[in-house]
Structures are given as structure tokens and as C-alpha cells.
């Protein structure tokens, strides 16, 4: 049902006609995010240029009960920015200024449409950087990172978005503008900043973000090591951790993932190894060198068959290129694939991988594994062919993998969020009382349920539907971003 003409006029009154898109050819661009199996063309797309204009739009929505969905770059992988039928999309990409880099206080003030990488670009002339590094960082926005509490390869040591955001200016679903958090970590009362972080666009729209910046480490050391089994690689991770070493990143790939990545990049990974580990350490020169020797010894102890140490920044970049290309590269060995994002306690890594292999065998579907080994965040890639009618099997296997992670004491999602994709699995992880309490928090922010409704929580409508298959994000196809 199209929106009432008078409501459209009110949006035009706030933004001007040029910033209100209603032509279906143009609004179609916004029909999905990175989870391309779900699509809804929005009624209107609003493109405000200031926080006040965002608030003005939301006030119109609140007045007429029009649902709205905030959108950054649309790289989300859980259908968080999926439009709502009869609703509007509020695109934040025109609020894209770095407002301030405060070198002395090591922080930056940003509008929500600034991309993750632009923060580090603005900070690096001062020897500073922004730590959370999702592999979509060239494109994804800080507003989207806040909404998803995004991570990256280096969050093992440095934490997630929530650990790096000091304060947020937020337009609440009634159109009022508030600041959550403050100039230091010391806050007055409950940490509403922290509640908003990771709330997947369901509690309001953030219009200004103050993040902490870190000093660029003095030294970085990176190695690539091959092992006779994934279990041996897992043992190395455990031993590194028990030695009291906190690496900047520890990533693992299995044979299938290596085959795909090496085929795509020629980054120098061994094609005949069952498992490869990327370990990166950073810190002061003397500490880093000392720990690096320990890591090498641990690798040897567990039967490392080949150890390649990055001897230059180029070699380091090459190792990472292979790792980061793994996702998109599986397109070379499979026509279709689904990306999973479950988490298990690190000590159960080899157990969960064995089970996944068993489940894959049973269903006759291949699964490649790429994962953040240091924090137990798996990205199993479920490989299938829609043309051969394997879509449903693959979808079932993928959901079973996520739910297996929960059964093993882990989580449905480590970084991609629940959104539309996993809402129906939420009851596997949370009880009725938990979900009911989440609802109450949501209702305190959004009593009329107009802010990104239908996401995160299981709904009968959604959970009765079958999602479509995964398709690569358009930007990914063009090589602008890589999946990690």
C-alpha cells in the first residue's frame, strides 16, 4: 500500500524533493543488504544530510506510525537493513564527514556514513588508527559497525566496536535527540551507549559517533604455518594462549578454503596442507620479537610442516590477501554458497569441526572452513549448487551448524548479527523470559515498534518463510570488498 500523499509531502517538507526517492527504479537499489536472499523494495528512500534532518524524518514517521529502517552501506550479512514493506529507508551515507580528529585525546568524532577505513585514513598521519577492522572496511560505515557491534581479524586482542566507542548521538524513535555515553568511560548511570551498540538498528539511528583511536604499534610480526591437521593447528592456538601470549590475530583455514584462496590470489599458501594458521603479533619491538620466538617454537612442537615468516610489509599484506580472499574465492569451487558466523568456546574448535564434517557428509554438501581461531568464531562456507536443487539442503545444514554452535556453549553469531537471517533461531539460544525482557528494553526505546521492526526477534510471519540463497554482494563481485 503506497504511503499517503500527505505523509510523503511532510518528508519532502523536511528534506526537499531531491532527497526523497520514490521512483521504484531508484528505490530498488535499496531492496537488500549483503544477505541478498531477502528482498523488499521500500516505499520511499530518505537521504538526509544533517542530524536535524534525520530527526525531522523520524518525527514524521513517529507521527504517522510509518516504520523506518536505517541504512549505512548495506554490507550487512544478516538482513538487518532489509526494508520493511510500507515503510521508508533512511540512508545515512550523506552524513559522511569526519568532524574531528582529536590527537591529544586520541579520539575522532564522526558522522555515521563515514566508512571504517576513512577513520584510520584520517588518523594515520598522527600515528593513530581505529582498531576494529571488518574486512568490508573499505565500504561499511561506522553507523553500521555500531549497529552490528562489528569485529575484525584483530578483535582478539583489541576488542569489538563496543570497546572503542565513547559516545553516540542518537535520534530516538520519537524523533528526540540524545547523547549516550560521554567524554570518558565514566558514565552516569546504566550504560545506554553499550545497550545501543549491537542493537541492529532497532533502538534508534545514530547520527554522531565518538571513537577511541589507538597508537599504531611499533612492531608487527606475521607468520603463516602449515599443519598436518586442523586439530594440530587448534593445539597451537591453545598453547599460545596458555603461554600468556595475546596475539593480535590468529586465523585458520582448512584445505578446501586454502584451495579456493590460493587459486584466486596465488598468495603462496600450500595446496597440499590440511590446515594453515596465520598468526600476527604486535607491540613494542623487544616484546614482540620475544613472543614471536615462543610462537615459532610452539608451531614446531605441533608438527608444523612449513613456516613462512613475512619478511616485509608486502609479504605481510600478501598473507592477509590470501586469508581475506577466502570467502569470495570459494565462488571458484562452488556455484553457490552460504556464509555462517557461529561461535564456540575455543577449546571445542576441533570437536565442532569434526561434527560439521560429519553433518556435511551426511547431507552430501561440502563445507569449507575459514575462521577466527583465537576467539572461536567460525565462518563455515556451505557450498552447494542451486541448479542441482541443493538450496534447501544447504540452508538446513547452515542453520543446523549455527544451532550446533549454541548447543556447544557458543553463540548464533559472532559478528554478522541476527537481523532477519537468524531471528528464527533465537529461541535456540534464549529462553522465553530472556526474549521477553529484550522486548521490554526495545519497547522502552520504541514503544510503537516502528524502528526496524521484524528484525532480531522471531516472528511468526518471518519464521514461516524460507529465505533464498546467498548471492555475493555486488561490491564483492566487483572486488571492492573481500569477505573475511
Amino acid at each position, binding site marked *: 500500500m503506497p504511503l499517503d500523499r500527505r505523509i510523503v509531502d511532510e518528508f519532502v517538507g523536511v528534506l526537499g524533493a531531491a532527497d526523497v526517492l520514490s521512483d521504484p527504479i531508484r528505490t530498488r537499489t535499496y531492496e537488500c543488504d549483503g544477505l541478498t536472499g531477502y528482498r523488499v523494495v521500500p516505499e520511499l528512500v530518505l537521504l538526509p544530510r544533517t542530524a536535524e534532518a534525520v530527526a525531522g524524518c523520524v518525527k514524521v514517521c513517529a507521527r504517522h506510525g510509518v516504520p523506518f529502517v536505517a541504512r549505512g552501506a548495506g554490507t550487512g550479512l544478516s538482513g538487518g537493513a532489509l526494508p520493511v514493506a510500507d515503510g521508508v529507508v533512511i540512508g545515512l551515507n550523506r552524513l559522511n564527514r569526519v568532524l574531528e580528529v*582529536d590527537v*591529544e*585525546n*586520541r*579520539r575522532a568524532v564522526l558522522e555515521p556514513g563515514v566508512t571504517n577505513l576513512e577513520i584510520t585514513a584520517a588518523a594515520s598521519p598522527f600515528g593513530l588508527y581505529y582498531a576494529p577492522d571488518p574486512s568490508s572496511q573499505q565500504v561499511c560505515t561506522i553507523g553500521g559497525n555500531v549497529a552490528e*557491534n562489528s569485529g575484525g581479524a584483530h578483535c582478539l586482542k583489541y576488542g569489538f566496536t*563496543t*570497546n572503542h566507542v565513547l559516545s553516540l548521538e542518537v535520534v*530516538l524513535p520519537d524523533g528526540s535527540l*540524545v*547523547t*549516550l555515553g*560521554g*567524554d*570518558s*568511560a*565514566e*558514565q*552516569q*548511570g*546504566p*550504560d*545506554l551507549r*553499550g*545497550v545501543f*551498540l*549491537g542493537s541492529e538498528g532497532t533502538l534508534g539511528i545514530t547520527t554522531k559517533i565518538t571513537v577511541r583511536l589507538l*597508537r599504531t*604499534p611499533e612492531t608487527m610480526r606475521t607468520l603463516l604455518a602449515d599443519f598436518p591437521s586442523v586439530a594440530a593447528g587448534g593445539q597451537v592456538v591453545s598453547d599460545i594462549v*596458555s603461554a*600468556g*601470549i*595475546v596475539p593480535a590475530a590468529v586465523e585458520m583455514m582448512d584445505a578446501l578454503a586454502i584451495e579456493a584462496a590460493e587459486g584466486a590470489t596465488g598468495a603462496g599458501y600450500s595446496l597440499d596442507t590440511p590446515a594453515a594458521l596465520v598468526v600476527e603479533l604486535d607491540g*613494542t619491538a*623487544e*616484546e614482540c620479537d*620475544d613472543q614471536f620466538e615462543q610462537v615459532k617454537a610452539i608451531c614446531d612442537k605441533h608438527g608444523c610442516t612449513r613456516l613462512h615468516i613475512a619478511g616485509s610489509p608486502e609479504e605481510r599484506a600478501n598473507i592477509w590477501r590470501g586469508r581475506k580472499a577466502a570467502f569470495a574465492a570459494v565462488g571458484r569451487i562452488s556455484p553457490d554458497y552460504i556464509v555462517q558466523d557461529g*561461535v564456540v*568456546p575455543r*577449546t571445542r574448535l576441533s570437536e565442532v569441526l569434526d561434527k560439521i564434517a560429519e553433518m556435511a557428509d551426511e547431507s552430501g554438501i561440502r563445507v569449507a572452513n575459514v575462521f577466527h581461531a583465537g*576467539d*572461536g568464531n567460525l565462518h563455515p562456507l556451505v557450498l552447494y549448487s542451486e541448479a542441482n536443487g541443493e538450496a534447501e539442503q544447504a540452508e538446513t545444514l547452515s542453520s543446523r551448524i549455527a544451532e550446533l554452535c549454541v548447543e556447544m*556453549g*557458543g*553463540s548464533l*553469531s*559472532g*559478528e554478522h*548479527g*541476527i537481523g532477519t537471517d537468524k531471528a528464527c533461531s*533465537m529461541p535456540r539460544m*534464549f*529462553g522465553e523470559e*530472556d526474549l*521477553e525482557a*529484550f522486548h521490554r*528494553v*526495545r519497547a*522502552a*526505546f520504541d514503544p510503537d515498534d516502528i524502528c526496524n521492526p521484524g528484525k532480531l526477534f522471531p516472528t511468526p510471519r518471518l519464521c514461516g518463510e524460507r529465505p533464498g540463497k546467498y548471492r555475493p554482494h555486488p561490491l564483492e563481485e566487483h572486488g571492492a570488498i573481500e569477505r573475511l
Partner: protein
Amino acid sequence: MTRAAPTTLRPTTPREVRDAVLDTPGRLAVAGAGTAADWAGRLHDIDARLETTGLTGVIAHNPGDMTVSVHAGTPLRDLATEIGTHQQRVALDAARVGRGATVGGLVATADAGPSALVYGSVRDLVIGTTTVLADGTMVRSGGHVIKNVAGYDMAKLLHGSYGTLGVLVEVVLRLHPVPKATATVAVEGPLQAAAEHTARLVQSPLEPIACEWVSGDPGRLLVRLEGGESTLHLRVARLVELLGDGAHEVDESVWDEHAALTAGGPGPGGDGGDTGGPAVAPDGAVLRIGAAPTRLAPLVAELPATAVTAGLGTGVATVTVPGAAVAETHDAVAAAHGTSALRSRSADLDAPAWGPAPSGLPLLKAIKNRLDPDGRLSPGRFDPWM
């Protein structure tokens, strides 16, 4: 109206907490070990005190995963001893840990210590919680894995809630390795000089874990480093060189003095001993303040403070001021765009606990309304805001 003296409830399991909340009519004050009993607004009109001190013990510690789940009434000090045998720790050095503060109490009061510079405050270490709400609803959020974005992060809501939104019954924490070596370098000097040192230090690659000025005559800056056994001395040497004349390595016990000063200065109760109970500053009030790091030193300098510990890298300081100066301290902090909260105060002091209300106050009230519509839990903590 006079009320009967509040009864004390001391449940020993999460289920008993739920039963206590459901079966006890009226208003409940939620309490841990009492080390922060007089922080924030004063409780009023209480019918019963619900103490978590019977709700203790480790539920699961998996050293390989570096996570631990505990009952919320467990003193962090005891937990530290237990997991310390595995060379692991909770990277939280809030001043009252040594006096027996409970894990739940530390979360509810949003406490932190000097090492927040690197490890953050307690909110950055909590990965899961179970909470009993005013109507007996038992809510789990987060889980046992460090990386997890499923569902709202209720732990953040409870962080700094001072017992007003629910009773924490279980807390899951991420652990860090006990460093192989630590060292502290001190340099004497007034606050302003310490701020200048800090400005250079945070731009260096030396990765200080804590960087605190403690008041005295003339006061001194303490900088702590953590690292490897065979390498830390190299970094200590670089640090001494950076800080220049007079910088020297000191014994780690300086941090006990720091904790005592943070708890309200030397004097009765504020001795950093392990007697439990609040450390009341005689004739004064302790306030916790936060501001942008570069604003902190000028702000603190303008306060009539008698004792100060100031995290010049974090922007968080704890100051003791005369009781009569509490209101003006809140004002001065607000003028510097900072935040302030009243901590310990002498028993008869009537002073505002909070400065001007944050812009999110209507939201805070809405949340309170949804979770505790009858205002049963810890009334008074956020007076005069709500």
C-alpha cells in the same frame, strides 16, 4: 510514616533470589559486600535488604577458554586467588577489590581501576549475565564466548545501574593472562607536570597499562608496564628515559597506597585494609569524575580537593572534597563537559549524588518503567533524577 527496620534476605542460589524478590512485598535494596553501600544516591523507604553475599562461588572455569562464570556475590578477590593458580586474572583493579567487593557489585557500580587504560572498565570484561528483575523474570544475556552479538547486551544495562534495574545473580567474565612481569616507574611532581609527561607517554610506543597521578607534596605520577620476564627491563629503561630527571622504578606496593587514596584518603576506614564495609572519608566526600583526558588536569586543579588519584590517560579521577563543596564540584565537572558521581561521604552529609541529568534521562526512566514499574528496586540511588 515510620517503617519497620528492613529485614535482610540472604539467598544462596539464583532460584532463591527469584523467590525472595517474588515473596517479599515492598521495596528492596540490593546489596553486595557493602563496600560501596554509600555510593550514589541514598536509599530510602526500604522494606528489605537483599544481600548477594550468600550467592558465591565459581560455576565454571575453563582455563583453555579464558572465561569464568561465577555467582554474582563472589568477592573478586577470592575469584582472583582461585584463577590465579592458572596464571589467569580478571583484569580489573578497582580500589575496593581488596576490601572484598563482589563481582556483581563491581558491575552494578560500573567500577574500574588504573588498568582501565588498556583493559577498560568492568563492562569490557563481562561477556554474559543472568539477572532477576523486579517481577521475578530471570534474564540471561550474552553467553560464555568472548565474541557474541546475539541479542541485546543486558550486561551494559546493569553496568552502573546501582541495583535499580535488577539483581545480578550470575556473571561470566573474560580472563587475561597474568603478565610474566610488571614494573612501575614514578616521577615526583605536581599535577600539571604529570599531565605533560602523560601527553608524551601516550604518543610513545611504550604501551603503559596505567598512568595515574596521586596527590601529595608535590604528588607523583605512577606508570605501570606489563611484559615478558626477559624484556620488560628494556622497556622500563625506555620509560625512565622518556620521563626524564627523577624518574625511577618503585615497588608495586605504591598501588596499594593508590587504592587507599582512591577509597577516600588515609584515615579511618580508608586504609585499604580487608575489613570490608565502606571506606568513609571523615569530614568529606569522595567523588568520581570523568572528562576528556586533556581536560582532566585543569579541572581537578580547580577543585578544593584534599586527595586525588587521576588517570591522566583515561580521564577518570577520584577526588576527596569537603562535604560543603560537593555541589560546586558537580557544577565544575559539568562545565568541563564531564560526568560526576558521589561515592563515599560522611554519614551525616546531605549532598547531591549526581550533577545535571544526562540528555538520555527520559530513556532511563522509560527503561526503569518497563523493568521495574513499581519502583521496587533500590529506590533513591538516582535521586534527584528519578
